[in-house]
């Protein structure tokens, strides 16, 4: 067991897979010599050499195109898009090419690749370096989407993503890079499509993702002090989605809250709310409530960013009000 930061866990997960399979290669801007601008790939160049760990030009289409073409022909590339906001300059490769090629070719082409990216807000980077883009990817059939919230999950889900034969967007939350967690020794391999119950409770189900998981847990602490036992589920994987865990929890608690960092409209929680309304409406004791960033870009000033992103206090307030009503 070791204490690792989330960013160290990224490098550990990649190293675990690169050591196991020489088809696994890593490309991206500043990922080799510099060890990544977020220091998530430190030591990989030294350990695996310049043939497998490659610094690229600032050319996101070229990076993801190379990853895709490599995956088509025998490699299992991991490509980094430094900030997830930059997907907007290479979304053709992601949404039109990676996502659709297997289907369009009726299964002739397999794309075992991972696109890792620094996602999410809270670092005062302003509107173009802070977005949570999971729901962009969720909306496109053919992409798997995961967001780990803990160092252990980073390692295990990275392994699962690399071993998946489908394109996986691996969303690392930038606000968690410095966070620390216990990571077991030895090989860790998790499973895509599995949520984790972080806290057990019978009064309300709170779903969260990435940075919001810790805030949901903190909110649950506050609520417990007031006699409300909330169940906190870390969704982890949006595609595939572990609806079984979510539906079972809602059936038990009768209330569903989502805590989403994305702007309001069509956030990931909206899809889950729709599923829950369809499939366990009669288990609900009250309306489903989504707690999200408002439908605005994230502002840069710390006071404003803190104001608009869902906080533990805001979650506790919303859930508490709803349950005491």
């Amino acid at each position, binding site marked *: 067991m070791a204490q690792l930061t989330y960013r160290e866990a990224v490098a550990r997960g990649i190293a675990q897979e690169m050591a196991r399979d020489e088809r696994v*290669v890593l490309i991206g801007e500043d990922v080799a010599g510099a060890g990544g601008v977020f220091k998530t790939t430190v030591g990989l160049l030294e350990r695996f050499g310049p*043939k497998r760990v*490659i610094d*690229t*030009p600032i*050319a996101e*289409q*070229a990076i*993801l*195109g*190379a*990853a*895709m*073409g*490599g*995956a*088509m*022909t*025998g*490699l299992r*590339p991991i490509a980094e898009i430094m900030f997830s906001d930059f997907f907007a300059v290479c979304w*053709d*490769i992601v949404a*039109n*090419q990676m996502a659709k*090629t*297997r*289907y*369009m*070719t*009726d*299964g*002739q*082409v*397999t794309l*075992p690749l991972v696109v890792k990216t620094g996602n999410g807000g809270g670092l005062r980077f302003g509107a173009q370096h802070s977005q949570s883009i999971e729901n962009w990817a969720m909306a496109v*059939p*053919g992409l798997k989407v995961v967001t780990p919230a803990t160092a252990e999950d980073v390692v295990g889900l990275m392994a699962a993503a690399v071993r*998946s*034969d*489908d394109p996986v967007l691996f969303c690392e939350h930038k606000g968690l890079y410095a966070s620390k967690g216990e990571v077991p020794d030895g090989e860790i391999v998790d499973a895509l*499509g599995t949520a984790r119950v972080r806290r057990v409770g019978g009064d309300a189900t709170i779903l969260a993702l990435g940075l919001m998981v810790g805030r949901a847990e903190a909110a649950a602490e506050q609520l417990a002090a007031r006699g409300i036992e909330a169940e906190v589920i870390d969704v982890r994987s949006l*595609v*595939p*989605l*572990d*609806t*079984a865990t979510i539906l079972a929890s809602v059936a038990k608690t009768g209330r569903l809250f989502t805590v989403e960092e994305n702007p309001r409209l069509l956030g990931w929680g909206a899809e889950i709310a729709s*599923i829950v309304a369809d499939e366990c409406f009669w288990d609900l004791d009250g309306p489903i409530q989504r707690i999200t960033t408002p439908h605005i870009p994230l502002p840069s000033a710390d006071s404003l960013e803190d104001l608009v992103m869902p906080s533990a206090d805001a979650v506790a307030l919303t859930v508490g009000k709803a349950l005491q009503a």
Partner: protein
Amino acid sequence: MTAPARAPHAYGNHPVVWPPKTQDTHDDADIPADTRLWIYRKLQEMRQFEKRAYDLFMRQLVKGTTHLSLGMEAIAAGFGAAMRADDYTFATYRGHAHTLARGVPMTPVLAELLGRENGLLGGKGGSMHLTSVEHGVLGSYAIIGAHLAIANGAAWSAQYRESGQVAVCFFGDGTTNIGAFHEALNYAAVYRLPIVFVCENNLYMEYTSIADVTAVARPAADRAAAYGLEPVAINGNDADEVYLTATEALARARRGDGPSLVEAVTYRHGGHSRADPGKYRPSPEIQAWLDYDPLTLYRGRLERRGVDPHRLDAIDKETADAVDRATGEAIAGDLPTPDSAYTQLWADGGSSWRN
């Protein structure tokens, strides 16, 4: 030193581009007779296939859209003859000829255009996405630019695996103005990837002349220097010139000397896609290029080289019969099963996104 001022932009303010004057330039080239007969047969196959595709479109059996290679066959055939069986082809939505060039049979290609179960992609891809991995056709890409970057990935993989394979990526003149072209060229040059980029410059992007919207006269060749590459501009209607250029570029890539950028000048006999009569092009220009047809050029050469015209007629007839056969088989194909709409999104064969 300053660059000469460019004339103010005005639509249609471009000169007519005439085809080359000679057809016998490569009569004496050192190309095996068998290779030339293979090229001739492929040219015929592509020409007759595309004409049939057009006819089936007019009969409303081919739905959606089609982008025909009529007039541009020499590029696909010349490269097809020069490529190794395990090399990779990346084509655009105008990819029927490139698919046939690698030996993909006509029936599944035609059946794909007709949306049949026996189509190359089971009816799920269509005319613009022809792919046959077993023949090295790693796809036809319908949004310009991306596939240059993707072809780099296949070339990178070949380099990584030290397989000696080369990726050949075909695209149109219009692609030279999109960002991905420039990203991909730089990327290929930086890593010395075994790749050949082939610009099929047919002088018109879709409905607009490439010259009207491009800062340089030769849309691909004049960009080569920016990536440390030699400018290569060739007669794209002479299959032997294409073959010779392809052979050299492929050898360079296999030697580890990196990418090439080839601009092959050619002409579409028809419009951009099925809906386009191509009327934005001046009639004398069209006529001049129809008269400089890659098939008549090549047949003339073979006859001058002493090939018996009856032998060539026999190839024409065999091809016509094969196209008829493929047409029958494609039309007779079943419609895709409804279930197939839900397969092969994921590697497990299905399309489920939840448990």
